């Protein structure tokens, strides 16, 4: 039964790898298409702006296409093996929700950094992020959520004059 779960886990990873390589292939196609819109040679015979990007783009297309094909072959082989496993158990999911939450909160951090300022935006990020990753320890989380942004402000802005956004606290 354990082997069946591992087979499905491996199959899931290969499926996501194929999706990722597909995205890279699509991005590579856009990049290469734009590279072919640039000059290979300038009118006076010099090497154009599109010369290097075309080589890189074709390389990306080739590598991601071969990687995608290999992933597809591996996926087909695994599927036939997984079908032979009668248990049908689903493998445990990694901590996808926590990771997605962390990415989502980072997007909020980026969006609020200028309007709210570094200190408030960081606090707004830290409170929910710590609630997700370190649930139930409210005092620790709140202390860190206040102390870290203030400490960073003192170090970067007061100490090094690094130009952090002041946001609403800047008046």
């Amino acid at each position, binding site marked *: 039964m354990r082997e069946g779960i591992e087979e499905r886990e491996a199959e899931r*990873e290969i499926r*996501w*790898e194929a999706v*990722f*390589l597909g995205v*890279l292939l699509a991005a*590579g196609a856009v*990049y290469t298409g*734009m590279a072919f819109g*640039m*000059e290979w040679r*300038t009118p006076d015979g*010099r*090497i*154009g*702006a599109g*010369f*290097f*990007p075309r080589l*890189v*783009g074709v*390389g*990306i297309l080739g*590598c*991601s296409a*071969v*990687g995608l094909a*290999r992933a597809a072959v591996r996926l087909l082989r695994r599927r036939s093996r997984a079908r032979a496993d009668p248990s049908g158990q689903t493998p445990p999911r*990694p*901590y*996808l929700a*926590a*990771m997605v939450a*962390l*990415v989502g909160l*980072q997007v909020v*951090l*980026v969006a609020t*950094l200028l309007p709210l300022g*570094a200190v408030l935006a*960081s606090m707004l*990020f*830290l409170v929910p*992020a*710590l609630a997700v*990753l*370190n649930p139930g320890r409210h005092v*620790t989380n709140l202390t*860190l959520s206040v102390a*870290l*942004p203030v400490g*960073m402000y003192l*170090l*970067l802005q007061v100490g*090094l*004059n*690094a*130009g*952090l*956004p002041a946001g609403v606290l800047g008046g």
Partner: protein
Amino acid sequence: MLSPATLGLLAVGVVLGMVVGVMPGLGPSAGIAILLPLTLDMDATGAVVMLAAIYYGAMYGGTITSVLVNTPGESAAVASTFDGYPLAKAGRAGPALVLAAVASFVAGILGVVLVAVTAPVAAGLAASFGPPELLLVVIAGLLTIIAVMGGNRMLGALSALIGFAIATVGVDLDTGAQRYTFGSPELIDGIDFIPVAIGLFGVGEILWSVWRGEHRGPRASFSVRAVLGDLWPSVAEWLEVKWTMLRGSVLGFVVGLVPGAGATVASLAAYSVEKSVSKDPRRFGKGAMPGLVGPEAANNGASAGAMVPLLTLGVPGSASTAVLLAGFLAWGLQPGPRLLEEHPEFAWGLIASMFLGNMMLLVVNVAAIPIFASIAKVPLRLLAPAIVVVCALGAFTVHGSIIEVGIMLACGVLGFYLKRFGMSPAALVIALVLGPLAEKSLRQTLIISHGSFDIFLQRGASQVLLCFVAVLLVLPVVIGRIRAWQARRAEPAHRP
């Protein structure tokens, strides 16, 4: 050059590097990338001295977590877990960490002497290199990284190509044409290296750790006093590793000289060497002191060796030295054959600071091992959000650009997927740094040769480098075939 202020920065760099190296999920490359923005307001010499100190401080910091909690801070410290953790379980972590610190010190000092001797020679050799040779050095460096990463080398090559692609964003300096800027004035100067490195190594590592549930793991629970044992090694332990330190130091330095090979290869090679020369190789993996000391000396020796191609060719040998190179460029210092002539105070000051930094590292290590051991107990669930904030604010301070914070975040997600699917963030970062040099060298080569690639066969240095590139291309294929053949031969013998 080494004023009291610079010495102060050196000490701060060593301590910060060790703190970063001890933190779970962060290694030297992430540490330097995250702390790089802090140094942007400093003078060039002080900043680079501090960054170099963070680099070798973090290299050693990773040893503490490898030995105490079996968690290497980065790949170069993996070999240190093989015997370091069994030593900790036996209550010998204290002597193990002291000997690892001494080995790092010996390798660092020997490495600095070797850098001082070889850098001028290498600079002289590099001065004879033209565009074809520089292009081949870049290709060889990237191929070495791809060859040693194992697994799927095609995906390693794809990582490097993505780095080259990111490097093409911005104005083409030769023709003045804009490339991939999508009309954004923020992208005209290209995508800055620092937010990309912070994203890939800082945020990417954190996302990877959270995805694997490391934040849910139990807090590293060990009694610092019990696991360290007697701090000072016995006479027998000192005698057992005296030659190990020298072997590891020299081997590490030589491996570090090869662009792209780096500390990981050096530490694994040193482990193999120590095992093969040992009178009792069966002790390895069960707590043999040479199994820890050899890799430790080697990875520090490689850190020193990697400075030679970095300073004389401007070619970084690892992700960490790529981030260091970005620091050099940020202060207008262009590493290359002329650096020793044009900025001798900087180059020799950096080498002298490495000497002093290694001495500081030894003192800090031996005196503060219990303190750093306690830092290793801070759980990832508290560190992860804090590191993200440090990364975001650090990325903003580089140019005060919110776009760059967005780029940092996007690169964090990209770094997560690269790690997840066995690709190489290190190859991407090095290709990003070397992209402009590769493009310029290729263009100049084709101009000199009137579009012909025969030029690579007409020059002696090119021929040697071309042979090296060919070996790097062919060797992994040949080794793979031999292993497959050996596996096929062994299979029938195992069948009942």
